[in-house]
Structure formats: C-alpha cells, structure tokens
C-alpha cells in the first residue's frame, strides 16, 4: 500500500507472523545442518523470496543430554519416549509474511525443498511418548511412509502446527494498544514490529538496487566481529 499517510490497514498477505517451533528430535541426528543457507537454491530458476516471505529464521539446537543453557532450567528437551532414548530439541523461529498455509505451501510446492524437509525435519523427529495415534496421517513416520512431504503437504502443515507455539493469526504490530479492532483479551503473546506491512516483496521491489545487493544466490559475506557486552 503506497501512501503518504501512515499505514492504517493491512491485508493478511501484508502482515508479518511468527513461527516458533519446539521440535523433539532424535538423539542421533543426521543431516540436520545441511539446509540452512542454501534454501533458496532449491527453487530452480525462480526467486521464491516474494512468495515465501521469510524475513528471518533461526534454528537453535539443544542436543540430547545437554544441560539447559544459562540458569533457566525449564529450557530443556522433551522427556524420553518409551524406549528411554533421550531426545534433542530444536527451536525454530521465523518471521514471515502472509497467512500460514500459503507461506508453507510456497515451500512444499517445491519437490526438492520437500526432500530437504524430509531429511532434515521428518527423519529426525522423535514423536514417541507424545500420545499420538499410530495411524495418525500427520505423524512424521506416517508422512515419510506415505511418500514424504511432497505427497502430504497438508499433513506436514498439521505436523508443524502441533509444535508451533506461534499463532499464525497474531500479526506483528507497533504496539498492543495500536491494534484494531482492540483484542478482547491479551493474546498468547504480542509480536512487535517496527515496520508492520513491510513485506519481503516490498523490500525487493522498493529498496533501490535490492537485487544487486541481495541476489538470490547470495555470495559469501564476511562478518566483522560483533562485541559482547563489556
């Protein structure tokens, strides 16, 4: 919405939302680190960034048996399942544009990307001991047995929502009090944003020379050291 006056209305595709996954993983992880950084190359010949709308994503891994980081003991892995094998924990956070289903299906439309999801997420999930119906078509095991994410995109979405502590209906806003209509009660969380409505598409289309600065196949970037607090 190009306008000279402040943004006062945002359609669903213009809104930013948060994905916050707490994924119980097997202790013997495999291939979980190969995808990040090369994701865009899995979309052959097209720039998926407008469609996927991913602003940021973060993957935090707490390996099986590792103590909780810091002094907060509640940040920990899920309990072991019936086999007694310890589980790892992956926390995945992402800020993305638009509703959840078009956001995820932008990925699952790509067969190559689906294969990566199968290897990095589904093959490593440990859903034992969570009380899931063994016939549930949305378990990782059943999705894989049924042909993987590409063949079961809606099941994959249901699986993600099982572990998504983010709410795809809570939009990023400048402040809680600026949301219209006013929420009748405080939502599960408040997602703050400096520029609500500034989508990836707008960044690509409106920022001068964006395609030169941030090409689809990004070059390696040298990061100077950041300083910790003194």
């Amino acid at each position: 919405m190009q306008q000279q006056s402040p943004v006062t209305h945002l359609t669903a595709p213009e809104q930013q939302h948060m994905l916050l996954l707490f994924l119980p993983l097997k202790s013997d992880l495999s291939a979980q680190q190969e995808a990040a950084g090369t994701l865009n190359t899995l979309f052959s010949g097209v720039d998926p960034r407008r469609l996927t709308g991913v602003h940021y994503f973060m993957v935090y891994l707490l390996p099986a048996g590792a103590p909780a980081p810091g002094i907060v003991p509640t940040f920990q892995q899920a309990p072991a399942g019936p086999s007694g094998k310890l589980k790892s924990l992956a926390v995945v956070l992402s800020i993305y544009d638009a509703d959840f289903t078009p956001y995820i299906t932008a990925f699952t439309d790509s067969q190559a990307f689906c294969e990566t999801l199968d290897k990095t997420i589904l093959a490593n999930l440990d859903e034992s001991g969570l009380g899931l119906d063994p016939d549930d078509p949305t378990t990782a095991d059943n999705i894989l047995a049924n042909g993987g994410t590409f063949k079961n995109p809606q099941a994959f979405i249901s699986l993600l929502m099982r572990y998504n502590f983010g709410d795809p209906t809570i939009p990023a806003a400048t402040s809680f009090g600026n949301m219209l209509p006013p929420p009748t009660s405080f939502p599960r969380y408040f997602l703050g944003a400096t520029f609500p409505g500034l989508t990836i598409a707008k960044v690509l289309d409106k920022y001068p020379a964006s395609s030169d600065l941030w090409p689809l196949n990004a070059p390696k970037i040298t990061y100077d050291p950041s300083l910790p607090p003194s």
Partner: protein
Amino acid sequence: MNLNTVTNPGALDLPDIQGLLLNGYQGYNYIRHLLFTIPKGSEQAARQLCAALLPGSGSTMSITTAERWDEVTAHPPYRLNIGITSSGLKKLVANPADYKKVYNKSYTIFAAYDAGAVKRAPFVNDYGTNDPSTWWKGPSWQQPGLDPVNTDIDIMLSLYAPTIENRCIWSKKLNDLLPKEVILCYSRDSDPIDETGDLIHFNYHDGISQPRIHGAPYTSKLKDAMIDDRPIVPSWNFIIQNAADAPYNPHPLLLNGSFGAFRVLVQDVVAFDNFIARTPNPELVAAKMCGRWRDGTPIEVSPDAPDPKLKGFDLTNFNYITPTPHQQGTPLAGGDDGVRCPFAAHIRRANPRDDYNVLGNGTAAQPGMAASHRILRRARPFGPPYDPAAPTQDERGLIGLFIGASLVDQFEFIMHSWVMNGGFRQDDDSPNDSGIDPLFGPLPNAAPAYQEFDYLSADGQTYTSVKGLPQFVTTAGGLYVFLPAITALRCLSQGKVALA
C-alpha cells in the same frame, strides 16, 4: 516432461470418470440441482440408489461418464452427475474403520472435505452475511420441518438437459428412481438467461477461460491446439490419480474422482448496476472490475472497448506480464502494472496467470502456483433475468461446482489468497492495495480500504477511486462434495471403499 510439447497425451480412463469433470456440457443449459439427506436407518436405500445410477445397471437413468458421446452414441438426452458430502460418505461406507482408512491415506486432499463447507467457511470468506447459518433458506428448501443448519445434506444430483421440456421429462424419470427413504431437501433450477447460455446476471459472458487439462479430450481440438496458448495443466489437478508428481496420496476409493465446492451465490444486480451507474463511464468501470468487457473481450488485450473481432482462444490467449505467442492487441511493454487490468479485477485475482507471485507459469517441469491453483468452473445462473423496467424480488445468482483434486490448494487457496486477499501481487501501488474482488464486494462493516474500487487512468498516472463499494455476492449455500468415479460409486453401492 513439458506438457506443452506433448502431442499424444496420456490416457485418462474416461468411462470411469464423471462427465462433468472433463466436459462443461455446453448446450445442456437447463439444470436441476437436487440435494438429499439420508435419514438414520436409510443407508442401505441410499446404497441402492448408487447402484441404480451405475452405468449399465439397467435403470432408466445413469450417471454420465466422460466417455466421448460422439464416439459412443448420439447426443444423450440428459446428463446426470452425483456428488457426495462427507456426512453422506460416512453413511454409505458401512464400516467406519474403512472411512478412517480413506481419511488417513489421503489426508492432504481429504481432510478439508471431511471437515465440510460449514467448518471451512472462514477459509473462503463465508462469515458475516455469508455465514453458514444463513444458508439454504427460502422456497428451494423442500423440507420445512427440517432446520437446514442441523440437517445433513448427503447426496447431490445434478441433472443437465438441452431443453426445459427434457429437464421436466428426465426429472420425472429420476424421481421415479429415488427410494422414498432418501429425502429431497433442496431443489434449485438453473436456466440460461440468454440464447448463448453463458451470460450471467451481472451481464457478462462467463466461462471463457477454463484450465487446459493434459489428456482431456474436450480441452482443445487438435486443429486448435497450435493456437491455444493456455498452459497445459497436469490432469491430476482435476482427476485424482496415482501419479508420481501429484502432491497427494489417493486412497483407491478416490481414484478417477475429484472434489467440488458446490456454491449457491446470490448476486445483487441492482446494487451492481447502481454502483457502476454512479461513475462517468459505467461500461469502463464494469470492464475494469471484471477484467473483461461484457462480451468477454479481455481488457488486457483491448483496453479501450470490446473488440468483436476477437474469437475463441483470442479471449484467453493472454498474460499480464509476458505476452503469450498468439496474444492479440498490443501488449504493454514491461507488463501490466494494473494500468489496463487492475490487480483488483475479478479475472486477474481468480487466475493471475504470469503475475509476479505466480511462480513457474507454463510448464509441467515447473508447474508452480499457476498450475496447482487452477479450478474447473461448472456454475450457471439461477433465477429470472433482472429487468429494470419490471423489477422483482426474485433471488438470482450463480449455482454450481468449482472442481479440483484439492479443495485446499485450489478452491480455498484461490478464494482466500487471491480473490479475497490479492496475495498474488505484492507490492501494489493502488490507494487501497487493490482491496477485495469488486465483483464480490466487501462484507458489511469491512475496512475502508475494501469499500472502494480503484483503477488507473490510461496513462498510468492517476487513480480513480469509486467509493461505496457494497457487497454484490452473498453465499446462500455451500457443500464440499466428492465426485466419485464409477468404480467408487460401485464400491459405495456395496458399502465398501474398495472392490474385493
């Protein structure tokens, strides 16, 4: 494999596929949609109805298949198709565990159907004045003693006839086939409102651009194939198949079938006519709102006026960004940023073709969103034509099916992400970010951005905002139905999900 280069398409099992999936039944313009409920204890009678409707059953009428009538017989006097809701399927399948097997195996394409149109209403803007609690009202509801909100609608039969007399004759024969235990709860006729049969009440010619389905015999004649620029869409988007590249896993019961959203959409012609009449150039505004002039001429191809020279594929051979090989007119250099066809326009929203967020438009090698989010439209007008000289309070609108293998990826995605939200195109410079599809119009009390229609001047410099855009289309009924293959119908006639 690039489907656009395939000259000998793969075989579809036409005798097993319901005709409506591959054939628009042109010329069969007198339609009767009948909705039934199966009361508890009447399940076997409903199975017997399925058996009676099987081709070759010896009954006076049977389900029309996609088999080419010009290769097997003369023009049939009627065409008949069946849809089954999830509540109906649960009643027809004798063992609930079998239903669960279908659900589990085919979750990706089955779960939304299982939930049904009422539960999925928010995904297609069916709330507020479109809320399911308002559906199935009026004289078309045949059972005053039954509350539509709390009645399972289980089976849909749609009868197509070439004349009103034929419809009367075959309706009577169909009625004779129906077991008394299966209760008719809704009946609505669809009659053409002009001699072409494709005019809708808003006075546009409709049904022009349908997907070009790989291997479908009716999609384009061989002699026309060379000038048909429409991307060929894999047939598994419309006919459920065990295809390696289909993004779903079908249970055998679903094979050669499909899913459909049955819709009853009331159109407020008076409000529409009044809205465009308030503008200096009503016909231009009407064309900008639809994306076509009333005669079907795409405004993208002929921006200033309808072009009667355009015929056949000229009306659908066009893109918005990169012209197609046989596109007529003079395309805009660099693509159309809403100058000719607004991003808000109905046909641009329902099928954005090659717009920026519609990845991979064109080939099976990279079908992307353009192929996976298409839909077959089998909707026709109902109600009498509106005559401003003799206005009546009759309801009028569109009734019929929107068909695809995946209700979520096709019907719901198009309605939610494109028609309502315009998500195919960000960024958009229009003052209201192209608001909402103006042929639908906003729900009452919608945000101000939705209550106007904006379009650009011919030089692309100035927006005209037409304020006070009201709701023109109201949902008056909705069902999610399974359109079974003949094999599946045979299974269901035996209460099973697979033949022994």
